[in-house]
Each structure stands twice: as structure tokens, then as C-alpha cells.
């Protein structure tokens, strides 16, 4: 069975006011739909409502004609939600976990069960409790694809995955969509948006359609991290999100360089060069570790531009540092 997942005027607010309101969208069968939102924008609450774990306070949602509120059991038969926590029975092996969930979802054993994310499947004979975060995530994703539901709902699916496994996941999601499944991905990674056929942005609990991944990424800062053997690109909404990104990047290996795009010097000046910078300011930035210099340069230029300075002095560098430290 295939069908579109449709939400109409959906709303849920926690007592403190967090949540979302008047959210309407359709995630079509055979499509990958992506809802992008910052941390705390309400993605996980939407996920919990669509997973039938929370009863919405307004509106409704359905899949292939089955109402998610009035016919909850029927709706549950059509979905496989993948939450942002990779819960497994830790003292069972990966294979036993797969068997338990296949049994719970009424799915017969599949001969190709071990080739779900080719080249990236975890060691299924090890205890799930001994898995790393990324391995647990892969096992959860395997379960979702093996249980073959008409709709797969993912909350931060690539959490903890390396870039190769991330690519394998999006390829598999595309395959599942091509076979007629409805794929809904809720993510805070703007780079995931390029895999979507239909795209939405969730901001302060309100959902709005976005025409393309380019449009989504336009208002964001592109950050390129260069490692000795690879280069990754991410997007952050503001410079305040940089410390988190740097922390995550440092966990990925030795960094050669972190570059920020989007800082624009005054007309006629090149970023990081020219008479915009005083030699003293440049000397102050040179005190930082080499791999951080491009990022600091971009941050200082961004601050100078925002504050309307036409020359970057050591004081401006100090101000930018203070602003960054506060954030």
C-alpha cells in the first residue's frame, strides 16, 4: 500500500509555549520530503505527533486514508518512525534486534537483510550494547528499511553517521522512495536538503515551503572544514552556532582549515587581505592556531561589516572575539 502523508493545521504546544502551530504539508508517496529547522524549532515534536506518541492539540494527519488520530492502530501499521535516540535491546545482538523488530512489525525474514546499507552495515553478531553511536544508528536505519512500511519518518537520520554512511543512507532512502514509499526527513542539517524532492523550513513552530535547497542555504553561513584526507561542508544559521560545529568537527579528526563563506569586505577589498586589515590586527589573528585562522578572519570581517567599520584594527578583533565568546 502506498499513499501520501498529509498533515492539516496540525498543532501542539507544550506548557512552556514550545511546539508548533498550524502546520500543514503533504509528503507524497515516491518522494523524499525534508523538513529543515534549527534546534528547538519543533521538529521532534512534529515527529512525535506523526509517530502517534503525542496527540495533537489541533488539526489532524493521515496516511493513505487512515487517520492518525481516530484510526491510530491502522496508521501505525503503515509507518516506521526512526527517532533521534537509537534505542535497542543492548544485551541482544544486532541480528536478534533485527529479528525482534521484524517480528513486531509482522515482517518475514528477508534473504537480503544484511545488505541494507551496502558496505556500511554494523557487525550484526555483536551485542547492540557494544555498538558505537553511529553503529546503533545504522542498525536503526536497517530496521526501518527492512520492515518495509509505506511511510518512513526520520528524525535526524544522519546523527552520528560518517559521511560515507550518510551518503549510503540517502541513496537507500531514494531507492525506497522510488519503490513507492513516502520518506519524511526532519533535520537540522541544511546539506541534507539537496536530497529532497519537497522541502519545508520550520521556524519558531511555523512551517513554510522552500522552493529549492539553494534557497534554503541562501540565508545560512557555509562552513567548509578541511581534514588531511577530506573536506566537509556544513551550514549554520548564525556565528553563534560555530562553537558547536567546531566541537563536532574536532571529533572528526585533525583539522587543517575551517573556512566561512559569506563575509563581504568593503568594495574593492578581498576577504582577509588588503588595506581593510591593519598589520597589528593581522598579527593578532596570527596568534591563533593555523587551522582556525581562516575562520577567525571571516568572523572578524563579518563583525566589522555588521558594525560598519571601514578598517579592522586590533580593537575590532578584540570586539569580535568578545562577541564570539559571549555567543
Amino acid at each position, binding site marked *: 500500500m502506498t499513499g501520501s502523508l498529509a498533515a492539516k493545521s496540525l498543532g501542539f504546544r507544550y506548557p512552556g509555549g514550545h511546539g508548533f502551530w498550524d502546520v500543514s504539508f503533504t509528503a507524497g508517496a515516491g518522494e523524499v520530503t525534508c523538513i529543515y529547522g534549527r534546534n528547538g524549532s519543533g521538529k521532534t515534536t512534529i515527529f512525535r505527533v506523526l509517530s502517534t506518541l503525542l496527540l495533537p492539540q489541533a488539526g489532524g494527519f493521515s496516511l493513505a486514508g487512515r487517520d492518525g488520530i481516530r484510526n491510530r492502530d491502522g496508521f501505525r501499521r503503515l509507518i516506521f518512525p526512526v527517532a533521534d535516540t537509537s534505542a535497542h535491546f543492548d544485551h541482544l545482538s544486532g541480528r*536478534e534486534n533485527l529479528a525482534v523488530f521484524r517480528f513486531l*512489525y509482522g515482517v518475514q525474514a528477508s534473504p537480503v537483510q544484511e545488505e541494507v546499507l551496502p558496505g556500511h552495515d554494523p557487525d550484526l553478531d555483536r551485542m547492540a550494547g557494544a555498538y558505537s553511536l553511529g553503529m546503533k544508528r545504522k542498525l536503526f536505519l536497517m530496521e526501518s528499511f527492512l520492515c518495509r512500511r509505506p511511510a518512513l519518518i526520520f528524525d535526524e537520520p544522519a546523527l552520528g553517521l560518517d559521511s560515507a554512511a550518510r551518503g549510503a543512507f540517502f541513496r537507500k532512502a531514494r531507492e525506497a522512495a522510488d519503490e513507492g514509499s513516502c520518506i519524511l526527513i526532519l533535520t537540522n542539517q541544511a546539506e541534507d536538503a539537496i536530497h529532497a524532492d519537497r522541502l519545508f523550513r520550520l521556524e519558531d513552530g511555523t512551517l513554510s515551503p522552500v522552493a529549492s535547497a539553494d534557497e534554503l542555504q541562501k540565508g545560512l553561513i557555509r562552513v567548509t572544514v578541511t581534514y588531511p584526507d577530506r573536506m566537509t561542508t556544513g551550514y549554520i544559521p548564525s556565528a553563534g552556532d560555530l562553537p558547536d560545529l567546531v566541537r563536532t568537527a574536532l571529533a572528526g579528526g585533525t583539522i587543517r582549515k575551517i573556512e566561512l563563506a559569506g563575509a563581504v569586505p568593503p568594495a574593492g577589498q578581498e576577504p582577509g587581505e588588503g588595506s581593510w586589515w591593519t598589520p597589528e590586527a593581522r598579527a593578532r589573528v596570527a596568534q591563533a592556531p593555523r587551522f582556525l585562522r581562516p575562520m577567525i578572519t571571516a568572523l572578524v570581517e563579518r563583525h566589522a561589516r555588521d558594525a560598519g567599520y571601514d578598517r579592522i584594527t586590533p580593537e575590532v578583533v578584540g570586539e569580535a572575539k568578545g562577541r564570539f565568546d559571549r555567543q
Partner: protein
Amino acid sequence: MMLSLGSAASGQTPPRFLAKTVLATGIVAAAAFMQRGGFALAILLVVAGITGPAVRVMNLRTNGMVDRLRSCPASKPGLVLGYAGLWSVVTLAALAPAIAIAGLSSGPAVIAPAVTGSVLAAGVGTLCGLAARTLGDVHLLAIAASVPLVAGAVLPGPWSLFLPYASVAAGTLTPLALASQIGLAACCLALLGGLASRW
């Protein structure tokens, strides 16, 4: 598959299970030496029967597994009652040598209420695990539920008719008491199933 499901739900590993069995057997054997085998077994049934499922439910809730199970298509009353039933089997199996020793010292009348008592304890434990909000709460709730049951087992009164632990401690059982105890355990499971059907 059933073995995997059982192990998955109870979280029991062979060493843990064995440790529980050895400890319970030792305690009941020592108590039986002082003619208090039934009394020790009653306390063990309450304490081990309630805390095990209660803490395991809380662990499953905190790691997100309960949410996974709630959103899967399997019957929720079936899952919860299966969980409680499985825990009563685990408790009975772990305490089987202890029950045998108590049966030898206090008489075979302890066996049937021990079975009913393990079902009731598993039901109460599961309810405690679902009602608590934190792991700290679940321990408090388990203690709060255990104390009146242990007190009811030791102090004779009208409740002795309904409490299987009272029959285990006393080593006596009437048909009416057995029927009442089965009724109480069934009510507890019905409450559990009713709560789960709202998930």
C-alpha cells in the same frame, strides 16, 4: 524468537539470573532452618517480583524503547501483559529452588500462592515502572508498594484472604483464599491491559 523476546523484555543475562537464584535459595534455606522459610519466600516474592519489572520498564522508557514499542503496530495490551507474564515466569524460575525448600519446610500449600504472588508482583512492578517519572521515583514507588504487601503478609487480618504472600508466609491455603488471590492478580493485570490499550 520467543527466547530473544523474553530476554529482550526482561533484560536478564544468565549470570544475573544465576546470582538471583543462588541468593534467594541461600536466604530461604537459612530461614527454613529457623522454621521461617515461608516468611522469607513471601518477602523475596514481593521484593524481587516488584523491583525487577519496575526498574526494567523505567530503563526501557529512558532509552526510548517504550516509545519505539508504542509506535509499532503490535497490540499494546498484548505487549504489556506479555511483559508482566514473562517477568512472573522469570521470578518463579529464579526462585524455584527457594520455593521447593519453602515447600519442604512449610508444606506444599506455599506453591500455588507463590505462583499467584509472582503474577501479582510482576503486575504491580510494571505499574510502578509506568507510573514513575525517574529512576529514583521508581525505586521509591517499588518500596512504597512492597512495604504494605510485606506487612500484609506478616500481620494477619481480613486482607490475608486476598494476599498470596500471607498464604506463603503462613503456609496455609483455603480454596476461597486461592480464588480471591487469583481474582486480585487478574484485576491487577486487567488494570495494566486497560492502561496499555490507551497508548
